[in-house]
């Protein structure tokens, strides 16, 4: 074989055939949005750590660029039992299942009325105005990187959720993105739109789950718009294949008095990144972002978080915890901006890491940019092992080193897991994280 193909040859080929087949049936506004995203991608390519590219400083996406990944044009054949064996599942949730980026209606529930839940492909086909109003409208897309452009260029399916004014959704909506990559290494570009009208309340669970240990790439975007007084609890799980690539982002627009709570759980992935941005563009808005990552083997997981306080009296809490084992690497970039005029901002951010192996590495970079007076902000990051006093205390109660270590690691993780309000999800996470924690002895 001759190496005449450019790096993005496969994407080009796929883009052409995608645009010819599916794309031609899409409305004109969407087609032109995709086309300009495609040109933007060709300009940007995948991000590199070169050229002082701070957001990608510690994460080399070379392996994604180098992998041969074909666009997933149809869902792989998987049974619901296979899915339930791996993914979180609760019949009391409104489950929407996607396989290789494609909505699978026979495994999914649906809702209409005060809470509408539709697949994006269906919403586009229906000419749903909500899609035109909100797609690509989430904040901070100008500085978007190649991954975002690529997702938009290939927009086809995903989910559209709409919570009407004053409505409390009676059950969590679970968007389950299953990938198999069994036949060939594929890429999918799921796109989620969530529109929360004023004073609505909802719970969204997004799970990204790999069924087999194959190579594939999930390139996901979630756009969330929260009108004044809206409340959202957003859970996000990364439990992909160990050979997979996952680049996800969520963009949240917050109006006055809205409450956004996010809990991110990252367990399995080869190379994973989650980019979360909340634009706190309303007085009295608040966000509470929690996260737990546990990396082992040669995993690489990057959390890149930006919180933008634009208006007075807004509150943000950012609290992530990581457990690192093996030769794994984790990156935490958390930045809080307090814009001019955003007085009485109350912000705290912290990232705590438990590094269990000398070969594991964490790069934790909390940062604050304050351009307003009269604010209360704090940030911190820790990386290390358990201190000797703590272990002595436990041993003095009869626990040996291994039991003490286990309780401490378990407790370290459980602090985030126990904050999960949904019983079914919490039990799944307890099992997923706590049962996979290493048997380990702290030694001094």
């Amino acid at each position, binding site marked *: 074989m001759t190496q005449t193909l450019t790096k993005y040859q496969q994407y080009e080929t796929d883009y052409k055939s995608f645009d010819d087949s599916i794309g031609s049936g899409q409305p004109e506004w969407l087609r032109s949005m995709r086309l300009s995203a495609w040109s933007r991608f060709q300009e940007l390519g995948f991000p590199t750590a070169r050229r002082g590219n701070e957001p990608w400083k510690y994460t080399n996406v070379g392996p994604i660029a180098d992998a041969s990944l074909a666009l997933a044009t149809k869902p792989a054949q998987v049974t619901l039992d296979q899915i339930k064996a791996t993914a979180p599942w609760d019949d009391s949730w409104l489950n929407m299942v996607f396989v290789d980026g494609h909505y699978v209606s026979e495994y999914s529930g649906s809702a209409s009325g005060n809470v509408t839940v539709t697949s994006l492909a269906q919403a586009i086909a229906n000419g749903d105005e909500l899609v035109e109003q909100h797609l690509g409208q989430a904040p901070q897309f100008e500085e978007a990187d190649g991954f975002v452009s690529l997702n938009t260029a290939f927009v086809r399916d995903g989910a559209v959720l709409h919570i009407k004014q004053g409505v409390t959704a009676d059950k969590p909506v679970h968007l389950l993105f299953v990938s198999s990559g069994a036949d060939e290494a594929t890429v999918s570009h799921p796109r989620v739109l969530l529109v929360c009208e004023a004073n609505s309340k909802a719970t969204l669970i997004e799970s990204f789950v790999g069924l087999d240990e194959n190579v594939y790439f999930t390139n996901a975007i979630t756009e969330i718009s929260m009108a004044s007084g809206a409340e959202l609890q957003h859970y996000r799980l990364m439990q992909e294949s160990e050979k997979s690539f996952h680049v996800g982002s969520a963009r949240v627009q917050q109006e006055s008095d809205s409450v956004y709570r996010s809990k991110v759980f990252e367990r399995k992935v080869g190379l994973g990144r989650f980019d979360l941005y909340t634009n706190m563009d309303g007085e009295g808005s608040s966000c509470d972002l929690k996260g737990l990552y546990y990396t082992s083997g040669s995993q690489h997981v990057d959390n890149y978080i930006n919180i933008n306080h634009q208006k007075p009296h807004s509150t943000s809490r950012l609290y992530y915890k990581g457990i690192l084992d093996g030769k794994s690497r984790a990156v935490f970039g958390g930045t809080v901006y307090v814009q001019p005029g955003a007085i009485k901002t109350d912000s705290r951010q912290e990232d705590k890491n438990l590094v269990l192996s000398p070969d594991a590495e964490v790069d934790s970079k909390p940062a604050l940019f304050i351009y307003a007076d009269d604010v209360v902000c704090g940030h911190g990051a820790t990386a290390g092992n358990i201190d*000797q*006093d*703590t272990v*002595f*205390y*436990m*041993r*003095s*109660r*009869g*626990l*040996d*080193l291994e*039991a003490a270590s286990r*309780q*401490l690691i*378990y*407790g*370290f*993780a*459980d*602090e985030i897991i126990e904050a999960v309000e949904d019983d079914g999800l919490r039990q799944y996470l307890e099992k997923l994280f706590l049962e996979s924690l290493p048997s380990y002895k702290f030694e*001094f």
Partner: protein
Amino acid sequence: MTQEIKNSPVLEVIDLHVSIEDKEILKGVNLTVNIGEVHAIMGPNGSGKSTLANVLAGRPEYTVTGGQVLYKGMDLLSMLPELRAREGIFLAFQYPVELPGVRTWQFLKASVDAIRQHRGEKVLSVREFDKLLDEKREIVEMDTDLVKRSVNEGFSGGEKKRNEIMQMALLDPTLALLDETDSGLDIDALRIVSEGVNKVRSDKNAFVLVTHYQRILNYITPDYVHVLVDGSIVRSGGRELALELEDKGYEWLRDQVAV
């Protein structure tokens, strides 16, 4: 099996020398504690009294440079901290450690399990353990709520000390070491903690109570009082010695030592 009868020594400290980071703290301590006895170790700040309690429990950062400690006839200093705990030594910490995320219930269950297994007793069922924990919790008037929370996390100073005494009651030690349990307690907490100790106290166990102040001895009557100054015991006596100290201060003994 050692017969635990009154007046048999449970603890014999013989010419104990201890250093931390090359600084000698204990300079030849001798102390014999019999089963059924309560010994108070008093002394000014920095005299080494907390060190003594912590070395006996096995705190790792100390280095024993000389001497010997026998616990129930065993060489205590060669035992791991957890083994000492399983053999019946309990240290109530001066500064109880917070264990974020480790729930009190799970922690204490694991602790009781480990100790009972070591003693060849059967592991308690959840229900049996709950009953036991309830009993012990009431001794120190602790909220049910606190047992569900992470160990000591967000507890007030008084709650932490009460938690120590509750743990002591739960683990039923042969030798309890109380490291300045009275410090920082208001009068109500002091009463609760002292009553807790008095309820656990029996002719089958012994106490070493480390304290700076005489105050707690108004509630817990010691059989012996020892005064530790600059790393050695300079005076031993009965209950009245504590009162004399209260009157004259530690300077009085320090001056005597100097002479």
